[in-house]
């Protein structure tokens, strides 16, 4: 049915426009209907489109909307492309998105700019769908920057607080750095291939027409864009600060959908990366490094949302590890499962914060499981899922990643698997630490907070339950096989099923070890953990300081640029050199005039003498030279 994808994309846009313009005047109920109704409708359309896709046997649906620009023989078209990969992404975006919208009704009740919140959220869905369904890199880039804008607006939603506005700006600038890399990659591909349509690009690269050098360069540049958006090592600094936004925003944008855009990009452009082994190994290494370092930082964080933020960065690192070793389908599978349990965790955290009336510091929580049972239950399920305990979703996807990290023919290596397993252990450790400190043990809550802890209203808890359920069953969808025709699994270096099963068992043991270690360390109020922290005080300070990455950037990038702009460009360049020379010329003219004026002394004798000199000069000139 032509126009379906366009409808899917335009629904959230309509939500943004209607709420943006009329929302304030027509009251929260109208905002709820539009703000939540349209994403749900979008989810329905997405499911319908997916069924059509399946009915057509996986044939991609292509819809050309209009020609954006026609320059010479270069054609830039705005067209949508639905194949299995983008269908999965669209379903996640609209599905989890709709759930989070429902959750937001409860969470944001009573906020004075209620309509604006839902308008921005719908705007985000519009741009995310544009990103996911776009056929050409240009449309993807429009969605790419659009979600950057939406996250900027939503992080700085409570703009009265200067820090939140500054966090929003930091997020946008860091994303923008990634986008600069993305643009360069896009230009390179355009120059090499001549078009920006992603499917044609994959064919061109697969066809071997493009030299490896260009493929590697394009791969790395696009990866820079991905690190910006998916908060990998060099450009991850913005995600922890992005927690300044409302919690549902963190859940939707900074956990489930936007940050996975980078993963989607690399998966979609698998054609390029298959031709560029160097780029793939770079991705794997950076992904793993990010995963490991983020996990270590998460261990010592005291703010509940910061822990989850670093956990997201770590899980994204895992996905990039999978992409790096060529297991594109597995990465998307992990993305799929991660969307559910991470959204559940964040919304759970939101519910905890809502219950404790804004308290976010886990050192002043504890013993909440009895007070807010539904939240604690769903949180436990999600924690188990992310830790990778067997029946749940996390176990299936993470285990696949570790297996391909070891065995993949395209760059699989033992140390990748080893560090991956250590990170898996750390993941289990910090997640259960979080659970232990927040829900179990003695209550360390401030008295006035403690007595009116209340369970969240039903819209919030119902969403939590749904997400918890999906966190369980998500693993059972055999997504890698479903995406196989599109993203073939890499050929294995060695295929010994016994080793595979052994690794699975080992992975479970690692997860359980993590759980036990957390229990031991943080069992009775975390006293034993504090002892260890005191002994390794210096290491603890480095981890707590997040490896001082922000300070390094501030000193290496921000301050020099400000210094150059102010001292070199403004003071030296403009004021002294340019304006100075102008004023110098003017002064020169004025002083010259003064010197000449001194000849008029007023004395007749002087004038006569001047006349005599003039006469002499004329005579000499006349007689000698004429």
């Amino acid at each position: 049915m032509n126009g379906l994808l366009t409808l899917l994309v335009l629904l959230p846009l309509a939500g943004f426009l209607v709420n943006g313009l009329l929302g304030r005047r027509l009251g929260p109920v109208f905002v709820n209907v539009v703000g939540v109704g349209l994403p749900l409708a979008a989810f329905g359309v997405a499911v319908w489109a997916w069924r059509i896709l399946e009915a057509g046997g996986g044939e991609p649906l292509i819809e050309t909307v209009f020609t954006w620009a026609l320059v010479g023989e270069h054609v830039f078209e705005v067209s949508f492309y639905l194949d299995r990969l983008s269908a999965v992404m669209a379903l996640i975006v609209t599905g989890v998105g709709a759930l989070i919208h429902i959750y937001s009704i409860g969470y944001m009740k009573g906020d004075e700019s209620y309509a604006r919140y839902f308008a921005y959220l719908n705007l985000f869905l519009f741009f995310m769908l544009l990103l996911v369904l776009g056929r050409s890199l240009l449309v993807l880039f429009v969605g790419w920057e659009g979600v950057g804008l939406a996250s900027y607006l939503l992080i700085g939603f409570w703009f009265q607080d200067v820090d939140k506005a500054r966090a929003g700006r930091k997020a946008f600038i860091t994303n923008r750095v990634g986008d600069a890399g993305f643009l360069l990659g896009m230009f390179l591909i355009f120059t090499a291939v001549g078009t920006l349509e992603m499917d044609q690009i994959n064919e061109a690269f697969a066809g071997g027409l493009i030299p490896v050098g260009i493929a590697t360069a394009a791969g790395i540049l696009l990866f820079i864009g991905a690190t910006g958006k998916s908060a990998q090592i060099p450009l991850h600094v913005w995600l922890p600060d992005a927690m300044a936004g409302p919690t549902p925003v963190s859940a939707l944008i900074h956990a489930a959908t936007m940050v996975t855009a980078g993963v989607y990009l690399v998966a979609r452009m698998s054609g390029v990366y298959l031709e560029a082994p160097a780029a793939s190994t770079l991705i794997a290494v950076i992904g793993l490094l990010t995963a490991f370092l983020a996990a270590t930082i998460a261990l010592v964080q005291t703010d509940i949302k910061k822990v989850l933020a670093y956990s997201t960065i770590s899980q994204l690192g895992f996905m990039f590890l999978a992409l790096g070793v060529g297991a594109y389908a597995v990465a998307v599978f992990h993305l799929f499962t991660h969307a559910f349990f991470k959204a559940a965790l964040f919304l759970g955290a939101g519910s905890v914060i809502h219950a404790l009336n804004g308290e976010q510091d886990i050192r002043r929580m504890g013993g909440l499981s009895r007070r807010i049972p539904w939240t604690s239950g769903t949180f436990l399920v999600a924690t188990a899922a992310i830790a990778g305990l067997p029946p749940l979703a996390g176990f299936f996807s993470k285990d696949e990643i570790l297996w391909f990290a070891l065995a993949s023919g395209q760059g699989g290596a033992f140390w990748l698997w080893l560090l991956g397993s250590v990170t898996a252990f750390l993941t289990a450790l910090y997640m259960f630490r979080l659970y232990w400190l927040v829900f179990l043990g003695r209550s360390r809550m401030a008295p006035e907070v403690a007595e009116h802890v209340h369970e969240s209203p039903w819209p919030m808890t119902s969403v939590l339950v749904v997400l918890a359920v999906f966190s369980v069953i998500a693993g059972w969808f055999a997504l890698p096989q479903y995406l196989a025709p599109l993203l073939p699994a890499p050929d294995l270096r060695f295929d010994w099923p016994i080793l595979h099963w052994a690794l699975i068992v080992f992975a479970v043991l690692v997860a359980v070890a993590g759980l036990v270690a957390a229990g031991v360390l943080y069992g009775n109020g975390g006293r034993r953990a504090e002892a260890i922290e005191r002994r390794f005080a210096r290491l603890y300070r480095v981890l707590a300081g997040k490896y001082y990455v922000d300070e390094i950037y501030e000193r290496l990038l921000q301050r020099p640029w400000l210094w150059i702009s102010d001292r070199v460009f403004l003071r030296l360049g403009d004021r002294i050199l340019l304006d100075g020379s102008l004023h110098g010329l003017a002064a020169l003219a004025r002083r010259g005039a003064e010197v000449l004026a001194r000849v008029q002394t007023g004395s007749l004798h002087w004038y006569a003498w001047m006349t005599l000199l003039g006469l002499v000069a004329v005579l000499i000139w006349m007689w000698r030279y004429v």
Partner: protein
Amino acid sequence: MTIETVFLMVFALGSLTGAVAMFFLRHPMRVALALIGTMVSLAAIYAQLGMHVIAVFQVLVYVGAVMVFMIYAIMLLDVRDRSFTERFSPLLVAGLAGLLLLLGVLIDGLLRGQPFPAVDVPPDAFSVSTFAIVFMEQFWVYFALTAVLLLVAEIAASAVIDIRRRGQDVAAVRAERGDDHG
């Protein structure tokens, strides 16, 4: 060395001494007399050259009219102020240097000048009659014009003076009345 050259030399020397004397004489009247001496020597030179009309007019106009008028001025402005006590201006040395420079240039000019092609001059070229004929036939127009211009200048001058005087009278009257109201 013909007799004429000797006479010329004498008169030239006369005019030069007069001119140089003007530098040193303190009282303007004596300077005026020295100048008259110079002018008369010049008239003599003109006569010696055969330009009798010019010589006569030189004496008549210059000495007669110009210097007399100057002497009246000197009589009216008999002021014994600083210009009397200090004869020379602050630029004395500069002036003398200028003099040497100028003379040097003039002499250099003269020495390098090409000799003049001799033109045969009829002996009575500059008699009174030829002067009168030439004056009356060709050039009377210019002199008539000059005369008219001078006349216009005088009328204008008197008109200006008249306006100014009447203005001053009115101002004077107003000043008196002003004092009453003041």
